[in-house]
C-alpha cells in the first residue's frame, strides 16, 4: 500500500443535477480511453495471427514451392484433397489424438491427486508447491532431452533398472509415444493441479462436513460433493490442456524427430512449410490444423458448455 491509501475515500459520487452533461462527457472520454488503451493489443493480435492465417488460406489454393517459385499456380482446393487423402495426414491425426487423450486423462487424475495432497497437507505445503513449479517452468526441450536420455540405450538408466536389457524404446511407435507422453505429463501436470487446487479451495467446507455427518463415505463425498462443486474449474483445465496437448511439437521433435509414426499435426505443418518449403500444401495443413482447433473449442464450449466467463473474467 502506498501513502495514497490513507487518503479518506469520499462517499458516493456526488449526484449533481447539472453534472449530467459532464457525466456523459466523462462517459465519452471513458469509451475513447478504453479503445485507445486496448488498440495496441488489438492491432498486434490481428496483424500477427489473423493476417498470416488469411495469407495461409490464400497460399493453400496454390501449388507453390519455394524451391520452384516460377511454378506457382492456382489449383483451387486440390491441396486440401491431396492432404486429406494422404495417410501421412491421418497418421499425424491419430498420433495427436493418442497423445492428447492419454496425457489429458492421466494429468487430470494425477493433477487432482496432487491438488488434493496440496490441499490437505499441513507441513511443507509451500515446499511441494515450489517443487512442482519447476517442471511447470522448465523448458520443454530440456524436459524432452532429460526423458530421452533416461530411456536412450547408450545413456539411460531405465533399461538397467527395470531389467530390460537392450530394449530400444525409440525403435517402435508405441514405446516412443509412451516416452513422449511421459515427458508431457511430467511437465504439464503441475499446471493442471494448480488450476484444480484453485477450484478445490472453493468447495464449501461446511458441505463436506454435512455430508460427513450424514454418513457419506470419502468416495461418495468426492463424487457427490467435491467434483460437482468444482466442475467449472475442471472443464476449464481440461479445455486448456486439451488444446495445449493438441499442439504438441517440442517433445516429438527432440525425442524421435517424428520417426516411427510419432509425427504430430504441428510437426507435419512445420515439416511441410519449413523443411520442405512446400508452402501450398503446407498452408493447407496449417488451415486444417486451425480448423481442428476451432472444432475442439466449439465442442467444449457448445456441447460440454464449458463456462469460459470464468477465464475471461467478464
Amino acid at each position, binding site marked *: 500500500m502506498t501513502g495514497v491509501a490513507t487518503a479518506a475515500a469520499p462517499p458516493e459520487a456526488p449526484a449533481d443535477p447539472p453534472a449530467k452533461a459532464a457525466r456523459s462527457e466523462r462517459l465519452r472520454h471513458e469509451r475513447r480511453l478504453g479503445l485507445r488503451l486496448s488498440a495496441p493489443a488489438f492491432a498486434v493480435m490481428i496483424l500477427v495471427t489473423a493476417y498470416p492465417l488469411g495469407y495461409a488460406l490464400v497460399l493453400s489454393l496454390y501449388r507453390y514451392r519455394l524451391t520452384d517459385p516460377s511454378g506457382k499456380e492456382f489449383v483451387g482446393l486440390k491441396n486440401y484433397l491431396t492432404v486429406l487423402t494422404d495417410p501421412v495426414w491421418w497418421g499425424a491425426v491419430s498420433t495427436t489424438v493418442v497423445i492428447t487423450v492419454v496425457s489429458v486423462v492421466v494429468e487430470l487424475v494425477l493433477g487432482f491427486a496432487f491438488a488434493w*495432497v496440496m490441499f490437505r497437507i*499441513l*507441513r511443507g505445503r509451500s515446499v511441494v508447491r515450489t517443487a*512442482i513449479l519447476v517442471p511447470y517452468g522448465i*523448458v520443454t526441450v530440456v524436459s524432452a532431452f532429460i526423458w530421452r536420455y533416461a530411456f*536412450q540405450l547408450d545413456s539411460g538408466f531405465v533399461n538397467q533398472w527395470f531389467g530390460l536389457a537392450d530394449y530400444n524404446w525409440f525403435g517402435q511407435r508405441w514405446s516412443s509415444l509412451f516416452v513422449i507422453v511421459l515427458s508431457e505429463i511430467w511437465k504439464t501436470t503441475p499446471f493442471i493441479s*494448480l488450476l484444480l487446487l484453485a477450484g478445490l479451495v472453493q468447495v464449501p467446507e461446511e458441505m463436506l462436513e454435512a455430508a460427513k455427518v450424514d454418513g457419506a463415505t470419502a468416495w461418495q463425498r468426492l463424487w457427490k460433493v467435491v467434483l460437482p462443486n468444482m466442475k467449472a474449474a475442471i472443464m476449464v483445465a481440461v479445455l486448456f490442456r486439451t488444446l495445449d496437448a493438441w499442439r504438441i511439437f517440442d517433445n516429438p521433435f527432440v525425442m524421435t524427430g517424428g520417426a516411427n509414426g510419432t509425427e504430430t499435426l504441428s510437426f507435419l505443418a512445420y515439416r511441410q512449410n519449413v523443411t520442405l518449403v512446400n508452402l501450398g500444401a503446407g498452408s493447407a495443413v496449417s488451415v486444417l490444423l486451425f480448423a481442428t*482447433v476451432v472444432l475442439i473449442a466449439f465442442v467444449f464450449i457448445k456441447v460440454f458448455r464449458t463456462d469460459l466467463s*470464468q477465464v475471461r473474467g467478464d
Partner: protein
Amino acid sequence: MEGRRTSHWWTVWGVLILAWAMFPLLWMVSLAFKSPETFRAGTPSFFPDEWTWENFQTVFDDELFTSALRNSFGIAIIATVLAVVVAMFAAYAIARLEFPGKRLLLSMALAIAMFPQAALVGPLFNMWRGLGIYDTWLGLIIPYLTFALPLSIWTMSAFFRQIPWEMEQAAQVDGATPWQAFRRVIVPLAAPGVFTTAILTFFFCWNEFLFAISLTSTDRARTVPAALSFFTGQSQFQSPVTAIMAASVVVTIPIVILVLVFQRRIVAGLTSGAVKG
C-alpha cells in the same frame, strides 16, 4: 479437517510429489557432471563415477551456445517487457472501463491462447523473408509478444480487479483525469500484479521452441531451445549427451531462481487468470 493421525500420511504423499518433481532434475544434473569419455565407455549408471565440470567448459567455450544464451535473454526480456506494457493498458481498460469492443478483445485473447502456432509457421516464414526480418531478434519478438498477450491480459486484469478502485475515484473527484488517476494511483498498486505477469510471460518466451527453429537459420537469433536441438557435441566422435545436459542445467537455473523467490506470486498468477479466487 482430517484427524491428526492421518496428517502424516499427507506429508508422505507430499514427499512423493516432491520426488516426482525433482527426480528428472537430479538425472539432468547427474548427466551434466559425467565426463563425455567415461560416459560412452561404461554401462550407464545413474550417478557419475567421478564428477567433472568438463561439460560446462565445453558449452561455454562453444559460440553456438553462448550466442544462443545471449539471444534467449535478449529476446525473452524484450518480448516480456513489450507484452506486459501492451497488456497492461488493455487489462486496465478491461478491468475499469466500459467501451465498445471489450468483449471482442477478451474473446480474441481467448482465441489466440488456443491458436495453433504451427499454423502460422509457413506464412510467417514467408512474410518474414519478404520483410527482411527472418533470422533476427525482431522476427522472434513479434510472435512471442503476440502469443504472450492473452496470458498477460488475463493475469493482469484479474489482479487489477482486486485493486481498491475507490481510490481512483477519490483522485478523480479531486480533479484528476482518468489518465492521471491511472498513472499516479493505480500503477503503484498494480505493480505486484504486473511483476507476476512479467514472470509468467518470461517463462513462456524462454520456453518457446517452434518459432525459434522455424524463423531462424543462424546463431544471429537462435535461442537456447533451438540451439540445443542442433547441438552435436565438440566433435563427431563425442556424444553430445553430457554437453546438452550441461547446457540444460544452465537454462534451468533462471527458472529455479525465479520459482524459489516468487513461488507464491507465480501460483497466484497462474490461477487468478483461469479461476476466480
